[in-house]
């Protein structure tokens, strides 16, 4: 048992590690221009970096964000890439340099070209207005934004008079451009050059922070993701917890009743109704309820879907339980009915299975009263699988509550998730996915453990045999 558990937990950690690697790379792949985004947020949307200064600004930011390091423990790049390629930080520069490098295969040449380009732009910026027409200067400076080769080419082909103040720089650029357009990477420079980056890399730093509970800050507003989650989690817990409790309150009596009663047409119909309830999409019922129960025209305006934060500020459940529960009632109902239907048929099947056990027959022949038979002998045995079931179902509930929270405006985790996606706040999104997958994995393990703890007959031997 213990070895099985240890094995199970170790593979679980391995798979969680794999997930976090994938999520890390997705996050890196997805991140919009972080520096631009954060600076824009800080300066109310009026942030502009001149391309000449960009590399410097971005490098300073990268040090602050800890992203001036290699991505992973090891790297596999084509041999033509330098080991220090990750040090280039300005996204536009990365794009152009990568493209040039893949086209020419000569890193020194690409770097020379970029230095020449920078020198050229500095020269243009320094020229006094009398030396060159303002329009032309403006055009040249704007070219710095594009870092497009063809634009530079046209500048090189301008008339002598126009090129006069910076003719030297332009000649140098032209020479380098010619070399760039003739060179192609050799066949062998495509071979991978594996490299070991050591432990001081971005993934390692990110992952070790996560282990200590720091899951990063939002790339939108700079707030710690944990704070955002802390605000959202109670709402999701309220909705899901109430839904589970309600569902069980319905499922227990009805399921037992259905198991006890003799088979009849009535029972078949109830089964069908339960199946229909289970198949009824919650978000459909939610959106139907939304207009039926919240618009004053239909007479049910006492449910409202706004004013959640108001409710929270006033102290939540303890200070004003009735408005609180009323507000939660619609989302909870939408979450609960499908679960209740599923749990009822589950309860029915487990209870009728228990009723068929030999010990129940024995108890019956002993002449025990029916109430004693059902509630003392059958019920505890039928309840065990139900307890196990709850642990496994919580993650599925969180998934289900995403759409419900969006419909009813509940400021819970699902809403937070959708809002973060819509505002491209990838740090929050992926920290969130990681958190949910840890929860799911923990739920699965917990239900396994509960299964063994509650039923000593299970030794998990069959799975052991095949491992």
């Amino acid at each position, binding site marked *: 048992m213990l070895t099985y558990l240890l094995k199970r937990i170790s593979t679980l950690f391995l798979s969680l590690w794999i997930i976090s690697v994938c999520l890390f790379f997705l996050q890196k792949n997805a991140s919009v221009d972080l520096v631009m985004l954060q600076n824009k947020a800080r300066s109310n949307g009026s942030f502009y970096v001149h391309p000449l200064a960009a590399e410097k600004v971005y490098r300073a930011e990268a040090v602050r964000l800890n992203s001036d390091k290699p991505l992973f423990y090891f790297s596999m790049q084509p041999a033509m890439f330098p080991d220090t390629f990750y040090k280039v930080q300005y996204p536009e520069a990365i794009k152009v340099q990568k493209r040039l490098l893949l086209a020419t295969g000569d890193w020194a040449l690409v770097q020379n070209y970029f230095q020449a380009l920078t020198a050229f732009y500095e020269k243009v910026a320094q020229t006094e207005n009398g030396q060159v027409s303002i329009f032309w200067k403006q055009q040249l400076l704007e070219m710095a934004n594009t870092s497009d080769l063809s634009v530079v080419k046209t500048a090189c082909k301008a008339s002598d008079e126009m090129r006069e103040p910076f003719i030297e720089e332009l000649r140098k650029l032209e020479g380098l451009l010619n070399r760039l357009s003739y060179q192609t990477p050799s066949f062998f420079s495509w071979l991978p050059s594996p490299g070991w980056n050591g432990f001081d890399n971005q993934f390692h730093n990110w992952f070790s922070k996560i282990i200590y509970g720091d899951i990063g800050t939002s790339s939108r507003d700079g707030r710690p993701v944990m704070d955002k989650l802390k605000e959202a989690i109670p709402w999701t817990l309220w909705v899901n917890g109430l839904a589970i409790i309600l569902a069980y309150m319905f499922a227990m009596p009805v399921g037992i009743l259905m198991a006890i009663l003799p088979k009849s047409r009535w029972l078949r119909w109830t089964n069908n109704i339960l199946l229909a309830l289970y198949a009824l999409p919650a978000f459909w019922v939610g959106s139907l309820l939304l207009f039926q129960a919240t618009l004053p025209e239909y007479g049910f305006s006492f449910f409202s879907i706004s004013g959640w934060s108001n409710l929270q500020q006033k102290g939540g459940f303890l200070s004003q339980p009735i408005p609180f529960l009323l507000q939660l009632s619609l989302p909870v109902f939408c979450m609960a009915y499908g679960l209740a239907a599923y749990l009822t048929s589950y309860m029915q099947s487990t209870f009728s299975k228990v009723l068929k056990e030999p010990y129940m027959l024995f108890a019956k022949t002993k002449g025990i009263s029916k109430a004693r038979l059902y509630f003392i002998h059958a019920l505890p045995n039928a309840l065990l699988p139900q307890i196990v079931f709850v642990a496994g179902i919580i*993650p599925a509930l969180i998934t289900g509550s995403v759409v419900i929270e969006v419909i009813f405006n509940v400021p819970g985790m699902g809403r937070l998730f959708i809002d973060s996606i819509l505002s491209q706040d990838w740090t929050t999104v992926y920290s969130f996915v990681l958190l949910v997958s840890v929860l799911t994995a923990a739920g699965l393990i917990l239900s396994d453990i509960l299964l063994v703890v509650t039923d000593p007959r299970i030794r998990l031997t069959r799975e052991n045999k095949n491992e």
Partner: protein
Amino acid sequence: MKLKIFFSLVLFLAVFGDWIANEKPVYCQYQGKAYFPLLEVPFVKLGWINWPVDFQNDNWRNLPYEKVIKTLVPYSPETIDRNNLGLKSPFSVQNTKVFWERHWMGTDRIGRDVLAGWIRGFRLALSIGLLSISIAGILGIFMGGLAGFYGNDRFHLPIYKAFFLLFWLVGLIYWIFQVFVTNGSNFSILIWLGIWLLIGVLVYSMPAMGKSIALPVDWLISLIIQAIDAIPALFFLLALLPLIKNPGLFHVIILIALIRWTGIARLVRAEFLRIRDLEYIQAAQLLGIKNFHICWKHILPNAMGSVWITFAYSFAGAILLEAYLGYLGIGMPAGTISWGSQMQQVRENPAAWWLAVFPGLAIFLILFSLQKMGEKLESKVS
């Protein structure tokens, strides 16, 4: 029996929906000539039939036909009916020329016919469900079968080959990645990929030397399954789809398949584990029948019984996921008309009940009948 009728109706709507709800008339006489616009579309595209210029303006509804036979629902899902803009209820007074051309399920905010979009929804839901589940089925049966048949102790390889395989796989991933980076246009990378594949085949077909070890195939595949299962399906989709630059239906289908294969694979693995130890399989192995033949002809047919049940449930799950995506408006290609996207409009206009009732009803009926079918299959198997 009733289920069969229902499913054939759904299939019919999915396949012929565009001929039922279309703004192009079935038959029309225009400027003295007879046309069959609905049926002629592919021929016009091929250039075999020429249409008058008026037909090419997509103004089908207002042309002065001499004679015309329209389709049952004379609107395409995309048709904007300017006379009935802004959420006309099915029961309200509608501004249509003929009573038959009413919007039986109302219109949405920009005047599109809800019934036409509703019929289009069948095709979308069914194609996403069927395609993703068949991809997931193939992947799941393959991986589950591999894990179940070989387990951790039956896939023997000489040690040097096992190490080489690891090395080779890393290289393969590198080359495929490079092909993607350069869009497959770089000739030398394609040559390198070819060389790498050739090396793999050569080394793999070399004779076995020295000791052999068993590769833990089952452990590896179970690890992958566990990792994918730990991410709830909707989160997986919602976190991945926005990253794709121009998401299309293809991406949605592939991603749903990537989520759904694990359930099928787990079941197939368990069935293979059970069946491979039965006597008739051992007899077949003693007869020297090849492993693939044993799996395909002797194990799989016996394992499929319970796999069909998960197909039914996964199908329902895929349709629901598609509806969620449309409803949340994330990840589906822009402008796609689906049940989810119709229901999404209710969020802005809570009083437009017809935009919620009909699409939801379709989803509910399909889910319900799939559950029913799953139940029936279950009772058949047991």
